[in-house]
């Protein structure tokens, strides 16, 4: 047989089979034939490493790339031997540090085993040192956990008896407070009645035409001569269903006889009679305005319509109303649309309690009706409230401390309670864009590096993978995506330290966290070097 290509030598200079470790050389005994190691076939010995795959298990080509399932052994003298995939033999990339995989001569592979060894050896020593230090640190964490646990227990034992006393003090203060407040309420009601009567009396001095217009002016917040639904919903006392907490647009429409806009004339005939009794006590300020306008009209040459606001005022108040309308319009994007929104772009509705801003009850003013006796009752009630508040706070503080300790005592802090010292302690990792925080047993956050509010990446969920992974879930929802979440991969290190934060999938964060808490005891350093 004549080959067109140089004969590929199956054996190396020292008669070893190429790509086979010394210990396995005996599987390739010299002879006339070779039996595939899986026993499936017998082939002439010359077919060994002849760059053609004869055995299904690839055993006839340990030194070439011919078999798809084969492995090539690099001795890597001076460093760790290695078995590489056959397809990496003679592929123009140096995979083995001794260069033995590129025997075909397509590329020159320098022997780097010595450098690799030194590098690996140094790294191994370093790792071992760090593991030992970490393990020592871990011991102190365990000790610390024990101390903390005992502290907690002591604190708990101390706090519990005190709670009963605090409870009793609070109950006593509460009884006194109720008593004092009852008196105060009574006085207030008396004063209120007097005041209301005064307003009603004053109202009675106006003609029905005038007083209804005063009421109209009161409702017409932006003074544009028409009352719209938003101007009604701000007047809680008009709520036809006061038992429901909110005064809805629908309910306001009821008051407005289903009209979109109410002008003065319609108001007088249709609305006024029905709300007269409810609204009269609220008209003090509007009556003042009315009188002032009349007064001013009398002063100037050309009297203006009473109550006509200046252009500026109209513009201003219209702006305010527009803003209110926008808010309410937005509210019409109800739940369906709401789901589409990223919470980052979302408002907290509670910030917008504009509906109540003109309905706050006016405090009873010091006036001629408040006697010294009255004032004493007010002061007594105020004192009783303060004493109660203090007692209440003292009790709650003590209770929350106890429950905090109890909660902590129920937490799983891992083997030897080693994670106890990290309970709600926060660690930070800074990149140029963000500061990432990790607070075990609490949450993870991402804050812009240049300030601004943070985005929660997740709440504490628990450990996974035998305390090697922390999991945080249900963070802020991503625009067009899932709720953010984070997993924390723990590795042994001397200090608690976040090594990196990445986002392998959108809105799924991954922290690498070094901590002595997961350091195991290093194997004793052997006398000889095993590398």
């Amino acid at each position, binding site marked *: 047989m004549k080959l*067109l290509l140089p004969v590929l030598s199956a054996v190396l200079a020292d008669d070893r089979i190429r790509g086979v470790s010394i210990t396995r050389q005996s599987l390739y005994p010299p002879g006339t034939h070779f039996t595939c190691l899986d026993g499936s076939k017998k082939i002439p010995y010359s077919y060994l490493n*002849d760059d053609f795959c004869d055995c299904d298990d690839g055993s006839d080509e340990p030194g070439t790339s011919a078999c798809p399932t084969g492995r090539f052994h690099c001795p890597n003298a001076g460093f760790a031997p290695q078995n590489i995939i056959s*397809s990496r033999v003679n592929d*123009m990339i140096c995979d083995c540090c001794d260069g033995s995989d590129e025997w075909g001569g*397509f590329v020159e592979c320098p022997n780097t085993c010595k450098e690799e060894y030194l590098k690996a050896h140094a790294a191994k020593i370093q790792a071992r040192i760090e593991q030992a230090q970490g393990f020592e640190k871990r011991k102190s964490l365990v000790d610390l956990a024990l101390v903390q646990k005992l502290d907690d227990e002591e604190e708990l034992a101390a706090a519990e008896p005190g709670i009963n006393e605090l409870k009793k003090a609070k109950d006593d203060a509460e009884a006194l407070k109720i008593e004092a407040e009852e008196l105060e309420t009574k006085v207030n009601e008396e004063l209120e009645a007097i005041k209301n009567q005064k307003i009603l009396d004053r109202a009675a001095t106006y003609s029905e035409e005038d007083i209804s217009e005063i009421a109209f002016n009161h409702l017409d917040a932006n003074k544009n001569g028409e009352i719209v639904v938003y101007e009604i919903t701000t007047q809680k006392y008009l709520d036809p269903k006061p038992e429901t907490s909110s005064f809805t647009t629908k309910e306001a429409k009821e008051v407005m006889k289903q009209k979109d806009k109410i002008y003065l004339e319609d108001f007088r005939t249709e609305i006024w009679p029905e709300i007269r009794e409810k609204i009269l006590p609220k008209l003090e300020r509007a009556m003042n305005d009315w009188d002032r306008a009349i007064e001013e009209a009398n002063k100037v040459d050309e009297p203006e319509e009473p109550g006509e606001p200046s252009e500026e005022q109209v513009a201003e108040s219209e702006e305010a109303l527009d803003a209110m309308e926008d808010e309410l319009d937005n509210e019409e994007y109800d739940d369906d649309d709401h789901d589409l929104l990223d919470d980052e772009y979302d408002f907290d509705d509670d910030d917008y309690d504009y509906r109540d801003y003109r309905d706050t009850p006016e405090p009873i003013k010091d006036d001629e009706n408040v006697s010294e006796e009255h004032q004493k009752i007010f002061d007594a009630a105020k004192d009783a409230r303060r004493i109660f508040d203090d007692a209440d706070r003292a009790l709650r503080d003590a209770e929350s401390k106890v429950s905090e300790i109890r909660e902590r005592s129920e937490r799983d802090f891992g083997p030897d309670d080693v994670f106890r010292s990290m309970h709600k302690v926060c660690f930070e990792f800074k990149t140029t864009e963000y500061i990432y925080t990790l607070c075990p047993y609490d949450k993870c956050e991402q804050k812009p590096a240049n300030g601004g509010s943070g985005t929660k990446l997740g709440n504490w969920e628990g450990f996974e993978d035998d305390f090697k992974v922390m999991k945080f879930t249900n963070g802020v929802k991503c625009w067009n995506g899932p709720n953010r979440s984070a997993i924390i991969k723990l590795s042994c290190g001397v200090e608690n330290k976040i090594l990196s934060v990445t986002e392998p999938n*959108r809105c799924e964060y991954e922290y690498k966290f070094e901590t002595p808490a997961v350091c195991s005891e290093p194997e004793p350093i052997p006398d000889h070097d095993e590398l």
Partner: protein
Amino acid sequence: MRLSAALLGSVLVEAVDRNNFKKCADSSFCQRRRVFNSDGVSPYAVTKSELIENDSILQLTLEVDGRPCLKALHSILPVGARINIEECEPLHPRYDPEARPSPEELLIDGHAPQKLKLDESNGFISIQAGDMRLKTSLESYITEFSHKDEVISVANSRNLLFVEELREKNDDEPSWEEKFKSHKDSRPRGPESVSMDVVFTNSRNLYGLPEHTDSFVLANTEEGEPYRLFNLDVFQFEIDERMALYGGIPFVASHSPERSSAALWLNAAETWVDIKYVDPEASIASWFTSGKVPEAHTFWLSETGKIDLFLFPGPSIQEVNDQYTVLTGRPQLPPQWATAYHQCKWNYRDEPDVAEVNENFDVHDIPADVIWLDIEHTDGKRYFTWDPVKFPTPDKMIENVASKGRKMVTIVDPHIKVDNNYYIYSGAKEADIYVKKPGGAEFNGWCWPGNSAYIDFTDPRAREWWAEQFLFENYKHSSPSLYTWNDMNEPSVFNGPEVSMQRDIIHHNGWEHRAVHQMYGLGVQRATYEGQLKRDPNSRPFVLSRAFFVGTQQWGPIWTGDNGAEWSHLKSSIPMLLALGVSGMPFVGADVGGFFGNPEPELLWRWYQLGAFQPFFRAHAHLDSKRREPWVFEEPWTGRMRNAIRYRYRLLPLWNELFYESHKTGVPPMRPIWYNYPKETESYGVEEEYMLGDTLLVAPVMEEGKRDVEVYFPGGDKYFRLDYHETPAYSGNAVVSAGEDEQIPVFLKAGRIFASKERIRRSSTLMENDPITLNIALDSERKASGKLYFDDQITHDYQKGEFSYKEVSFDGKSLNYSDSAQTGVFQSEHSFVEQIVIYGFGSSAPKSIQISSNGSNWQLESQVKGTTLFIRKPNAKSTGSFTLTIE
């Protein structure tokens, strides 16, 4: 603020927003001039005729009452016939993408008009050159195109020819302005559309008109919308639509058992095409032909420009593709690595991420050739720059990827961030190469970087400037291992009409955008290609584009844009890519896995199986999609996807041969069955399976949960499933298994030979020296033949003869492996033939196998598995010659 967030929320609807894109009725010229379903108007008469240009062009004057005088130029080119029509005396010049010297020089060869033989008799005027003839009726301007006296197609046979006369606006006429949604088009020149019908005689099937998601056979459009050609960035496109997409080729191929032929309507403006199939009884062109035949009617309507119609005679589809690509340019021969596997994602975050992806391919023993970086790699979407935090050391990153024989691709889009401190923006401003608003100010639109200017790629000066930006010294951190992706080149303008540019925007030489729209994307890709040539003239460029037009095939591949992770999109990739292939655009692919959404591992696996058998093989995913590199789903999925990708690498020698053939003759590697079986009528509508060359039949699984496929084997031929030696050859119809541990069903056609490489390395470039295996399938006469192509895989040296083109044939006894007549001189130093696999050989082993090469003879061993013969180690050089005798 909350309100606007709620409005933004509407983009979450998982479907294309049709309201953003025009229907015919939304486009004034389409609404006005779509007369496909009406009878023609009174015909033009030919009132004057003369031969001009040394008797190579017949100029006809066409007149009829009430319409403008038209001038028609008829000529016969080496590759087909050409009909040009415009007004006799147009008020303004009309844009012609092919007027020379033209901005684009779209016609490459075969366009020189030939000397004509004129014949005028019996009311007809004919011109003839060679076998082709254009015969025109003088009484009513109707022109038949025939080849060897057989009528193929008829222009204006229904008298739908109409050229809206360019004129000044009358004072009492309403404004010419046109609105679409909130966008105004000033339309300063008013109505200017051109339209005409072309009837294919004796035809029942039309194909082409990419890019649409409708069936492969073009549908009858009488009842619905016409096919629309207008390059657009369509967000979340849907299947079974004739809406416009990212690219357009105004090319239709007709196919019948007797003949293939085609028409090209060379117009760069928005174009609508109607299709109707007519039974023989209702045929209208039959006065030209003997007897009544089925007809396929087409109607072409463009917003502006001239009529420039090319008719290609065929008669085979291979010849049609040859004629078309002689005229418009041969497909590029891609560097081999570009035909291997590409890994893309919007976006690999940073350098460690890239390093990890690169490493993971090796950890999981999955080959890959290219890692891609989408827009986030840039410094604030400033193309040609790098994000200083995420990509601080691109040289190191690229070098690391390249150390495994791999390449990288960065995205470079044509919209330029308006920022005077950005050297590309200020440089292009200084060079004065941005498109302009009608008043002459720089046009700005909204795209990824925010406010952006758009380089005018219809301007040769702009292309020259752009090309220079790719010089290694200009594009910082670029390297010979870094190539380019041009996206958003329709162009995409987020705040423009239909997410593109206003039509009254001004380009080079004062042309309005409406006239040149379809050529914009082509110019981007071409300028980038030329840039890569500038930096390294002897390396084959690689530029992926999303937009395309006539001629794109010369500059590189395209992909089908932003598809979805759905089974329907997987399925639709076949008709979409087949339509591109028959329209002269062979290097095409669909994003594996689907761009939008998250594929289940089963869908992703099936997509890898199919993608490995489509010309451009790239996985890609949206920014919001979960990671889905082939190892993400773990076993058994990693193994299944690994097998699918490795199959591609194994068959790279076949792809080499197919791309070379495509480069030489225009035939696509991925072909409909009828391409190889022109008379097999039942194959005309098949789009669930297809062929690679004339060699392999590919029958993928495209339904969830299915573990077998019903396969149709055409032509009564035998087909052997690759690697199944115990299974007899298939023919006719059969159910074929496609289980979890199996490869995609792929069959070798009896009578064909192809080469494979069985040693799968980390990347294709590492397989350069590897031996090949010859795969042979015997036909019923125990014969087979095939071709093999070898070159250095990356340079242009093949153009200087550094290639080897082999012919392999087996006559039942002897295998002859030798140079073909068209071979070059390339010799591979290391690659040899390691094995010959003969399917259908029979269950008995041969007595002897003798090989002879270079005057020496020796015996070879073999073994039989099932009915396949495996011949061991011929060890002849793959670029050499040998014969082998089996007894």
